[in-house]
């Protein structure tokens, strides 16, 4: 993993570095800055599951009906970016985290328990609002993504951030 040009995107409002209330133009601009980041470290809140602990994202299903790359193509990337192999979940074991498939939903949308059950049938473990659009813009800009999702509280972020910082300093 290339830690040298890593950027933090914390959508949970907890850690000091790289706080964003939600995905938007501000996030897009950072991912498309020159030179672009090589790794986006994303923290987001997940819903529709019973987990009390965080997990690492290994893949996603975009159920939001939205793709931030719709529109004229930005020259930083291909018109039709390949988005397989963008999530880096190799370090899940070293961070003692399970891996999950997340569904991306439109910001603020909450699923009924029936719809959450349906989402599980489709192959997703939980849903969140920011990981998927951030990943799509990152992938388009040639940037890998290390994404961690956790319950809707502030209990897990600091520990995860410390572990990731430790990993990154070891790697350097």
């Amino acid at each position, binding site marked *: 993993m290339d830690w040298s040009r890593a950027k933090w995107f914390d959508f949970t409002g907890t850690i000091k570095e790289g706080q964003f209330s939600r995905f938007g133009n501000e996030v897009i601009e950072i991912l498309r800055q020159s030179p672009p980041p090589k790794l986006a470290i994303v923290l987001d809140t997940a819903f529709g599951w019973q987990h009390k602990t965080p997990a690492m994202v290994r*893949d996603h299903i975009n*159920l939001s009906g939205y*793709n931030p790359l719709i529109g004229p193509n930005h020259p930083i990337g291909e018109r039709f*970016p*390949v988005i*397989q192999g963008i999530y880096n979940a190799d370090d899940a074991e070293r961070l003692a985290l399970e891996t999950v498939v997340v569904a991306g939903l439109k910001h603020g*949308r909450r699923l009924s328990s029936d719809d959450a059950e349906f989402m599980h*049938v*489709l192959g997703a473990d939980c849903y969140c609002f920011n990981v998927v659009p951030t990943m799509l813009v990152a992938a388009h800009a040639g940037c890998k993504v290390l994404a961690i999702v956790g319950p809707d509280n502030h209990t897990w972020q600091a520990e995860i951030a410390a572990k990731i910082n430790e990993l990154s300093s070891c790697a350097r």
Partner: protein
Amino acid sequence: MKVEETKVKARTPEQALAIIRSVVDVVPDAGIVLGSGITALQDLVEPHSFSFHQVFGVEPTVAGHAGTITIGKLPENEAVTLVVFRGRYHVYEGHDWDVVTLPTRTLIEWGVKELILTNASGGINPLFKVGDLMVMTGFRDLISEKWRGGIIEALQTFPKECRNELSEKIFVNGARLAQIDKEFWPLKNGIYAGFTGPSYETLAEVEMVRRMGCDNVAMSTVPELLTAAGSPMKAAAVSVITNVWNEDTVITGHEEVLEASKGASKRLDKLLRYMLSGRR
């Protein structure tokens, strides 16, 4: 913004037709839409060509989609007049639904009876191979504007059927052609999943639509089929399988894929000429 400008300049089907009719006053027997990388029907007799921009007032933005309209007679049977669209407008380009469906609405207004749509697609049925042609029997609409708030509801409905006299005719002609021509592979059939794109799918997304019984996936054709449904124009669609999603498959070189697509274009060209020339 470029897209804002194009939204303003889009014409109506009536205006688009007036531009075409000022040059050539015929009602084609059939319309053909050729998707990205698909070449066919390149030698129409007494051809009249227009750019998309000229007729519809909107520039397509995708490289590889030429965006031309050619009206001419089929060399194999000059009693048959065709209109061939090379390229199309896509939702992922940022075009409004009105623009994406404008060519189809123009064909309906024109009184064209049959529309054959083609597209390049990723195969998710493991029995498919690169270069196969798949007649669409149904599709999943994950593209329409009504799903802008999320596609869960779209996935909770049944796929839409698009089997009709025209798709049957394609199938029957394909079966005949496969008997008399060894180079013509038998046609496949299946259900198409239409995503907006422009990014390709993740493995989890491919697995999801595979579980839902879909056979291939691409980013077009659904708007045209939805627009034609309920109009007097019959529409059918043929997908070229340009790659097959499979975790076990070793990705072959891009050149092999291109070669296979070329072969598929040739077979599609044969099929269209065979079917349209005999009006079988």
